[in-house]
């Protein structure tokens, strides 16, 4: 595998197979922790770490694990790294830990992880597997960040905790409530779809 193809794997995860906007997976953290941009990024990076590390390990062990216990082993590996992240965050910042709540632990159950481990890492050598996983992770982070920004700006009038519109701004509380999460995600999905449509129209428009 040459470097450019690894890089393609990486880009795939960010754009063509973006876990949030294209595959629509990992929805729980996507909606739950994106009330602020910081939370979103932290969650995204934590997931990226778990994704990369576990895909690497799964790929290394892919010949050693019998089929019947495949899922269980992958889950074990993922859970290990999640626990690692969980404690790491506790050690780094308790505020962040509080903000992300149980969703750090729930990274285990994030469909993206098992999906990647099963569909990609278990079938590919370590290097591309890891690249792909990290790409996915960044794609996920990007998605979370996009949602987090909108929710924080409208919901609190702030970005990264910095007030944007002065103290008389009326926050749109709904944005930080559960429905707001849905709405912002849907908004991005529509923007994404519109963009894809525009692109495909452009391609079709070229006389063949």
């Amino acid at each position, binding site marked *: 595998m040459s470097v450019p193809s690894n890089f393609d794997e990486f880009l795939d995860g960010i754009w063509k197979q973006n876990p949030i906007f294209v595959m629509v997976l990992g929805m729980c953290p996507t909606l739950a922790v994106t009330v602020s941009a910081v939370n979103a990024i932290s969650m995204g990076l934590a997931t990226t770490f778990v994704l990369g590390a576990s895909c690497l390990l799964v790929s290394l062990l892919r010949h050693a694990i019998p089929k019947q*216990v495949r899922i269980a082993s992958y889950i074990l590996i993922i859970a290990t790294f999640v626990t690692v992240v969980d*404690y790491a965050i*506790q050690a780094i910042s308790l505020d962040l830990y509080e903000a992300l709540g149980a969703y750090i632990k729930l990274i285990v159950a994030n469909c993206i992880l098992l999906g990647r481990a099963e569909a990609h890492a278990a079938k590919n050598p370590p290097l591309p597997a890891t690249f792909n996983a990290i790409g996915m992770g960044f794609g996920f982070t990007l998605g979370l960040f996009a949602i987090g920004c909108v929710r924080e700006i409208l919901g*609190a009038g702030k970005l990264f905790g910095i007030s944007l519109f002065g103290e008389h701004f009326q926050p749109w509380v709904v944005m930080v409530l559960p429905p707001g999460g849905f709405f912002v995600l849907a908004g991005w999905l529509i923007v994404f779809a519109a963009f894809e449509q525009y692109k495909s129209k452009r391609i079709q428009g070229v006389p063949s």
Partner: protein
Amino acid sequence: MSDTKEKQTSSFEMVRALGLVSVICGIIIVGIYQFTLPAADANRKLALERQVFKILPDAKNVVTYYATGKGIIAAQGHDKPPSDAVVFYAVYDSAKKLMGIAAEASSAGYADQVRVLYAYDPEKQVITGIGVISMRETPGIGDRILTDKAFLENFAALDVHLSADLQSLANAVKTVKHGTRSGLWQIDAISGATVTSKAVGRGINESAQALLPRLLPQLDKLRKAS
């Protein structure tokens, strides 16, 4: 992909593989746990102290205690509170004088548990302030319990003195509708955030009912402690 007829894996192989992965994972986890434990503990202690300083600004030293049915014991040396224990913190000032007790109260609010830390003045038998440990209440509504001056006024001296038999509060702490406070043991709710206000009142009441009867008789032990 080439061998299409998969062969049945033997049970032993499966047990071995899964067992091995489990053990490796377990060891990694213990490792990271042990490794991060000091930092996390330090963090937690820092956070606690920060909270305590907010409600008792002159505090210097915070000691964790457990109030059990049999008396109070210092947390030092126990890594786990006894099952029926109520955790509280004795707070001392720079002169090592016991300046107050802090304890946690929690109850279900509008969205989730509302956890607050309250300061108790054992001399006057009143609550002298509250701070929020964690909550997920609606910004702009529920979180006014942090910012609403009138609401915080309630806790300047919230009456929690014990009844004659020292078994319960003389007057249960209660949150009442905004503008209808009629006793020092009542909390005047924030209009528009009644649910959250009630959660605070309910939490404090529960915690005080459990803690104070055990605490008061043993106060001297704490005074002497440092």
